[in-house]
């Protein structure tokens, strides 16, 4: 009997022998016929990673990416049949991969790609009307709370991760400057876009996402960034549909 444990044993490991009990239909051992399944698994998972992390593929080169994917998919086969979620462990894998230690930013660039994919499939939301804020009195403004749209992601990096992503993916993007960057991913309609956040804006938006009042979020941002620009932050967030509700 060839159980599914027997069958899967050699699926991800080319050094393991073909499981017993499998034939070519006329009594000869299955041999490389089994390899078809092994190859299908490796190719389909490798392709899924390539589709999900195009900037990483560009940064390391397509052949290196294939080799990386081959190692990754053996260590982290999918845990869900939803391939749209495959590769959640890839950023940490890249950071822990010794031969890539000199490219310290890869993990955070991969996090941006992963977040953009999650954003692409996130629930739809109607953007809050920006004029709603203008209609609030000062007291109301300070006590209001804001809900971020489900497609919004905020990522913090010690590297210029968003600029590196853009430099590789958006023609004409400027060369990245060596500085830390916070990234806001928005999806005004269907296409996620990363934006570099001004100082303190990530603190402000993360606080709002956790349920803080406008005033408390503002305090957090100002204590972390003396040059926090509230107007620019609100324009960016409201202008790209990052805020779905203003609750006063």
């Amino acid at each position, binding site marked *: *009997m*060839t*159980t*599914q*444990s027997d*069958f*899967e044993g050699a*699926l991800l490991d080319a050094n393991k022998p073909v499981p017993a*009990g*499998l*034939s*070519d*239909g*006329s009594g*000869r*051992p*299955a*041999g*490389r*016929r*089994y390899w*078809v*399944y092994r190859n*299908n*698994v490796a190719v*389909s*998972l490798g392709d*899924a990673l390539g589709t999900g992390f195009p900037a990483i593929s560009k940064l390391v080169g397509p052949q290196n990416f294939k080799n990386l994917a081959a190692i990754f998919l053996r260590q982290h*086969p*999918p*845990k*869900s*049949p*939803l*391939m*749209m979620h495959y590769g959640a462990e890839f950023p940490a894998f890249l950071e822990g991969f010794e031969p890539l230690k000199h490219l310290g930013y890869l993990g955070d660039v991969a996090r941006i790609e992963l977040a953009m994919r999650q*954003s*692409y*499939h*996130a*629930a*739809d939301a109607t953007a809050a009307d920006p004029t709603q804020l203008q209609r609030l009195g000062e007291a109301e403004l300070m006590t209001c709370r804001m809900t971020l749209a*489900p*497609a919004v992601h905020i990522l913090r990096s010690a590297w210029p991760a968003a600029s590196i992503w853009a430099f590789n993916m958006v023609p004409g993007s400027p060369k990245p400057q060596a500085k830390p960057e916070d990234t806001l991913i928005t*999806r005004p309609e*269907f*296409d996620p876009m990363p934006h570099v956040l001004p100082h303190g804006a990530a603190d402000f938006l993360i606080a709002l996402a956790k349920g803080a009042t406008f005033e408390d979020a503002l305090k957090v941002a100002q204590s972390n960034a003396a040059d926090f620009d509230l107007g620019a932050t609100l324009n960016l967030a409201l202008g790209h549909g990052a805020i779905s509700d203003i609750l006063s």
Partner: protein
Amino acid sequence: MLDVRFSDVRLPSGPGVGYKPQHFNDILKNAFPVQWLEIHAENYMGDGGRPLAQLRHLSERFAISVHGVGLSIGGEGRLDPEHLARLKHLVGWLNPASFSEHLAWSTHDSHFYNDLLPLPYTDATLTRVADHIDAVQDAIGRRMLLENPSSYLAFEESTWSETDFLHELTRRTGCGLLLDVNNVFVSAINLGYSPQGYIDDYPLDMVGEIHLGGHDEDTDDHGAPLLIDSHGCEIVDPVWALLDYTLEKSGPKPLLVEWDTDVPDWQTLAAECTRAQAALAKVPA
């Protein structure tokens, strides 16, 4: 009162195509001769965004077939309850004309392999697959179609022929069948039996849909032909001939052209569908 859970739309006995997002505009402009669309269930299990928006739009104009590729109906473990719930949700809101899945497994010990892996045809497999089909049909509240696999090898322990195995599953569960004639051709060449003989033995009256697709050619350790189901090229003449042979016995059926890798432009797909339509035109209704 009408039961709103069930579509009163059936797949038309005309050409359909596996939907690819890059063809959205072409399809809305002029889908001819395509009459219906098939989607892979798992690609539409996100929470929102473009995939679901496109699907809602398309479902207003076309009968939709939902084709699962991740349920692992042949798996030794129980069906993933979360995945079953997602499927129930999708089938519930979309109310498609058909739901189908594969006689295969893809998940074991919570690892998903993203491939359709083969099963031994034994009494134990039969009982397990029948239980899983019952669970799926209970969850989605409707009959499903089960697709025959492409086989590259055989299990020495098998005691049932594939056609008898499928027939018995329909008898036990009331499910229908999705007949993939390319898979029949691939398996028959690979395992050394007659594809026409397979069709002769196959319960054609249970067929709710037929799949057509392209395959690649390779050889095994002994230089024998080894065909690989790739869905990445045109359908070969012997598979069209097998379709003719099948339709003559079965009468008209919904025909789906599958092209999943190296996806061509819409015109190339439409040309394959025109050929499928011509095959149907030869068959008395």
